[in-house]
């Protein structure tokens, strides 16, 4: 299973917000936001909630899971 996200889209929907601005708003480094966005780092539940809350969304609207079979199709 893989965790994916819509952070990039949501950032641009929020006035082309930069990774730095988002990082500052949820109190992590830009590197962390970049890694989460690229799927290289799975955030903690708390950070996932902080990001979702920042965009005014539910966690499921920001993060979603696909299994390997689904990805191959």
């Amino acid at each position, binding site marked *: 299973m893989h965790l994916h996200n819509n952070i990039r889209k949501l950032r641009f929907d929020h006035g082309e917000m*930069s990774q730095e601005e988002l990082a*500052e708003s949820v109190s992590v*480094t830009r590197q962390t936001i970049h890694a989460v966005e690229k799927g290289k780092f799975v*955030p903690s539940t708390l950070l996932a909630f902080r990001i979702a809350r920042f965009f005014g969304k539910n966690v499921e609207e920001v993060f979603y899971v696909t299994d390997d079979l689904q990805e191959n199709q």
Partner: protein
Amino acid sequence: MKKENSLPAKGQQLRVLSLITLGLLTLSFLWLFYDIYAYLEIRGRSQDVDRLSNLLGAGYIVRVLLFVSSAILLLKAFRRGLRTDITVMAVIASGVVAAIATVFDFAALSDIGHEYLDMGYECAMEWTTLFLSLIIRLFFLFALLLAIIRIMRSLATLKVPAGKAVDEVLFEITQYIGIICGLAGVVFITWSFGALQDFQIKAWHRWLFWFYSAAIIIPYFTVNIYWVVRLAKRKILSLYDEKQKQDIAQSGLATWLISIPLMILVTVATSGSNDSVTVILWFPFYLFSTVLVFSVLLLVRFLKS
């Protein structure tokens, strides 16, 4: 659309120049302690003056490179809007005095070579010049370190307000300094191991050796302490964010795993050698090699993300 994860070309140049200057600064700091040792040895009319002089001479090259690099760095930073404050003024003033003192050092050492060692004069003035120059240089290096950190922080596209995000720039700088200190330490220990094999180790040699090992690792600990103090002032409870913590944990585990075969190799390689030397050297070697491996792994993880 905003450009991500990259600085403009001039910003990148400044960043690279900052890192080069930081590397030269760390080397100069380590060389400063060698200079103290060499001056004391020469003052004690050591038999090994030629060898000591060669390394002293090599230190001048590093020093000149640092002066040139820091001057270019400041000029470029001014063009990019660096404002003159007390740190920048301290760097410029102490840098100019240290550069002039370098010329006087050269002249003083030359006089000492002829008049102190060959003819037996006291050369009190020359010795005073040399030791005063060391203090000025130390002050310059600390002021320059603060200025470099300020310049690198200014390269971040967004100013981080107090009490918010964890500092990325210091995190990166810490790893660069860890690599330089760790590498310098490993080279120093390896060299010492070869040089001390046929040596009758006395108590004061141990102290001197510990002093040098401590001097090599000081920049790494200093930047870590500086980081903790800065965060404490900003009332941030956590030193790292969650990805940094994961990177540190994974790099720490990898370092521990690498350290086991490494120390087995060291044990095998040193069996049958001068035991008193091995007893002194193994712990600093372990410390420096783990700092080096840990910093490299952590920096790679940081730059990859």
